[in-house]
């Protein structure tokens, strides 16, 4: 990977939330929500950040956009030939960069202001960024509505008149208003009905092809992720446990957690589940992670080393990263 086509390079990203107890609010611990995450995204590609609830994927995404300040690490964002570290940039210098990175939210019902008409929702970022001329703005909004396949006749309607899928189109149009390079989409289809999910996924693929967008796609659903991403990073308790090209990761996972996730994903084929791996116990507590590999209490391949030593994320083949002491020796089952 040459350095020049990297749009986002995340190094050692951490977000720890303090736990305070008692009358004096004394610090009694840390929730290590994101605990040393590193990856980079090439311009024009989709990297999926997947994991179950509490794995830190949303927190990581929010730190990357500086919606919340990270505790440590670097978020190097390259735009117009210039690289800046979003993690440490003063707020004032951050502001003009915000137009280059936008977010699409999970819930299209709560992420749109119910008192604004669709045209104003989509046009608001334009107004804030200095497009004061009403007619100009209207023209751009109309263009954006066409882009996401919303009839421009809906300009003056309120969000409540729209279905979930249409609302998500509105959210996408708003995110695209300022021609961003990077879109962070946090579970963009998980609140939608199946028959509408496919429409939005296809739209996101089309827009990426047409506009050269880069996506950081945060999701829990491995089936959805397979349809949109070039590469996948699997997170568990605040860390990336495996990162690889989509096809490779699904076909030949190297981390036992990836194997279990793939095996647990329901497939619409009756009688296909004979070999399911059902993990025991529950996801580790990020405030009190187990010693050694955080996955070892649920891992059926764990050895003594896994119980005592924390594995590091290592590149085991070009472009394949895995954090497992036994990577490569296990012969895990994939799908597809």
């Amino acid at each position: 990977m040459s350095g020049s086509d990297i749009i986002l390079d995340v190094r050692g990203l951490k977000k720890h939330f303090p736990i305070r107890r008692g009358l004096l609010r004394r610090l009694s611990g840390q929730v290590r929500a994101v605990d040393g995450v590193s990856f980079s995204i090439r311009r024009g590609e989709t990297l999926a950040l997947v994991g179950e609830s509490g794995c830190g994927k949303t927190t990581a995404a929010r730190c990357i956009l500086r919606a919340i300040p990270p505790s440590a690490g670097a978020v190097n964002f390259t735009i117009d030939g210039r690289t800046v570290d979003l993690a440490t940039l003063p707020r004032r210098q951050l502001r003009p960069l915000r137009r280059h990175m936008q977010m699409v939210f999970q819930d299209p019902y709560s992420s749109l202001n119910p008192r604004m008409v669709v045209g104003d929702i989509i046009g608001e970022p334009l107004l804030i960024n200095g497009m004061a001329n009403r007619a100009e703005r209207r023209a751009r909004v109309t263009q954006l509505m066409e882009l996401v396949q919303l009839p421009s006749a809906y300009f003056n309607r309120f969000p409540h008149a729209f279905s979930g899928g249409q609302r998500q189109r509105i959210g996408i149009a708003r995110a695209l208003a300022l021609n961003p390079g990077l879109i962070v989409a946090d579970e963009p289809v998980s609140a939608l009905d199946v028959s509408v999910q496919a429409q939005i996924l296809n739209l996101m693929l089309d827009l990426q092809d047409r506009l050269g967008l880069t996506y950081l796609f945060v999701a829990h659903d491995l089936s959805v992720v397979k349809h949109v991403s070039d590469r996948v990073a699997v997170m568990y308790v605040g860390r990336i446990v495996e990162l690889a090209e989509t096809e490779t990761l699904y076909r030949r996972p190297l981390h036992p957690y990836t194997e279990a996730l793939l095996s647990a994903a329901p497939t619409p084929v009756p009688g296909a589940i004979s070999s399911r791996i059902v993990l025991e116990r529950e996801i580790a507590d990020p405030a009190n992670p187990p010693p050694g590999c955080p996955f070892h209490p649920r891992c059926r391949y764990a050895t003594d080393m896994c119980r005592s030593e924390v594995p590091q994320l290592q590149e085991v083949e070009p472009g394949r990263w895995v954090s497992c002491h036994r990577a490569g020796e296990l012969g895990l089952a994939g799908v597809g």
Partner: protein
Amino acid sequence: MADPILSVRDLHTQFHGREGIVRAVDGVDFDVFEGRTLGVVGESGCGKSVTARSILGIVDRPGRVMGGQILLRPQGGGPPVDLATLPQAAMRRIRGPEIALVFQEPMASFSQHYTIGNQITEAILLHMGLGKRAARARAIELLDMVGVPQPDRRIDEYPFQLSGGLRQRVMIAMALACDPRVLIADEPTTALDVTTQAQILDLLRDLQQKRGLAIILITHDMGVIAEMAHDVAVMYLGRAVETGPVQDIFNRPRHPYTRALLRSIPTVMARPRTRLPTIEGSIPHPFDRPRGCAYHPRCSEKLGAVCETHEPPPIDTEHRQVRCFLHGGIPGAPPGTQP
């Protein structure tokens, strides 16, 4: 096959509001058998949850069951009881000992002010005539059965102290407290992570095998249906548009909606970055229910005017039922000449 435990016939449940009538369930038929799972699948607004609530007689106001039959065959034979006409007092003896419900969101379905032990024993004390001590022992036994670790300690905890997966196990224990014959599980795993979902589905299958439970599994997830169901009812806007054995529904779907739905599901088997076939448009608002076949505005196999003006009647073939003019029922056409 033996007689079904529960048969729903032409069920109609409506909500009369100021803005109009919502026909949430508009003519649904299905059968539920001992030891088998009926999967009821559909998207939002298809009436799957209202169907479940109608069976239990707990439809929220202003909703009411307006027609049809909900026939429960009593244990040990005898004529079936129609739950749709049963008085509330008698329904109370059905909910729990005969039919029990597991909700989607275990957090919202528990009281936060009582321990889980209190909440499980409430039903046992009410229905089973056991003393306090015996009821507590029974509750611990139930928690153990559904795989709650250290049940004798957990029984004194409050719902907020449990993880989502454990709460759903407790919910299932509570539903099974009075040994029901039919378990209705309404999106039991939708709020859970995949690895936890796999655990809960395993548990339901295991309980069914051990106790011969009849399960009605309500979900929007075709993957869960494929894995769990023996029989399937596909619902769209208040109607079961297609019912049949799971293999038939997935391998030879007959209704255009079932076909389209199956094609549009993302799967882990797909080639990366492949576009999915989509269903045009979106689900209509229940106030704007299309005339004729409710699916016709989105249907890619529409026959023509008949679909816009007439409601397709149920067409029965062996073990299967479909409501679509592609398979017959066109008014005026002599039998045998239909497409």
